[in-house]
């Protein structure tokens, strides 16, 4: 099982990737990369609290139960990235810009909640 520090390292790596891609040209990849930053931030927080998850469904449920405020920001990233990856839905810049704003809120919240 990955440690808090390992999850944060992976979140930072994914954030660097997100910062490097052409977000206006690739809104689908933008929401997907943003989601994978959020996944590792959420996993760092859950690991710190001793909550073990091994699937998206379990992670979602743990966020609902323990961090509903973060879940409200995390959910659109999960939803949009899932639709971008699997349903071929066109992701607009309205959606990707909202995803980035929500990722910022998640990042700030996790920074405050982790020791």
């Amino acid at each position: 099982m990955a440690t808090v520090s390992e999850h944060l390292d992976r979140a930072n790596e994914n954030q660097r990737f997100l910062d490097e891609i052409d977000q206006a040209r690739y809104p689908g990849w933008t929401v997907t990369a943003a989601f994978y930053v959020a996944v590792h931030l959420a996993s760092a927080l859950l690991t710190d609290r001793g909550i073990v998850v091994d699937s998206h469904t379990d992670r979602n449920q743990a966020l609902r139960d323990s961090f509903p405020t973060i879940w409200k920001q995390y959910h659109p990233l999960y939803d949009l990235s899932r639709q971008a990856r699997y349903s071929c839905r066109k992701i607009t810049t309205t959606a990707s810009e909202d995803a980035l704003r929500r990722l910022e809120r998640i990042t700030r919240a996790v920074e405050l909640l982790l020791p």
Partner: protein
Amino acid sequence: MPTQVLSHDPPIRIEFDPAKNVVLESSKQHRFLMFEHEVGMNSRRVPETRKLSEFLYAVREWSESHDAQLESTFVRIADGHLDIMFITKMTDYDPNFNDEMVDFDLELAKRFDWLRAEVMQIPGPVSESPISLRNSVQVYGDSI
């Protein structure tokens, strides 16, 4: 994964009686029974019919209260959970609608803690959407 029963058929539109029970034409009852069976298998819990009806009715009620934004609503069996797909009348993703939808998601999680469900916002119309309606029932909106 045992989810073949509805795969070749379009979604069935379900209705409710005043006691909030699912009511269907006899020709569709078998398919709904199979839907219930699949929900039980995929959630690894077998819900009582009454509980599932209450859940679907709650989704229907919420959809009706958002009729200005919603075209239709489908509930689909997914891998270990249910997808609640809200097809909107909007042409683009709506952050405000998303916030209301996630509030409803939290309410559902508390009220129906025996079932895992994920809400999704999908700009409509459903006829132009790339979503799969395999293994789904329609709980709100005109029949497709």
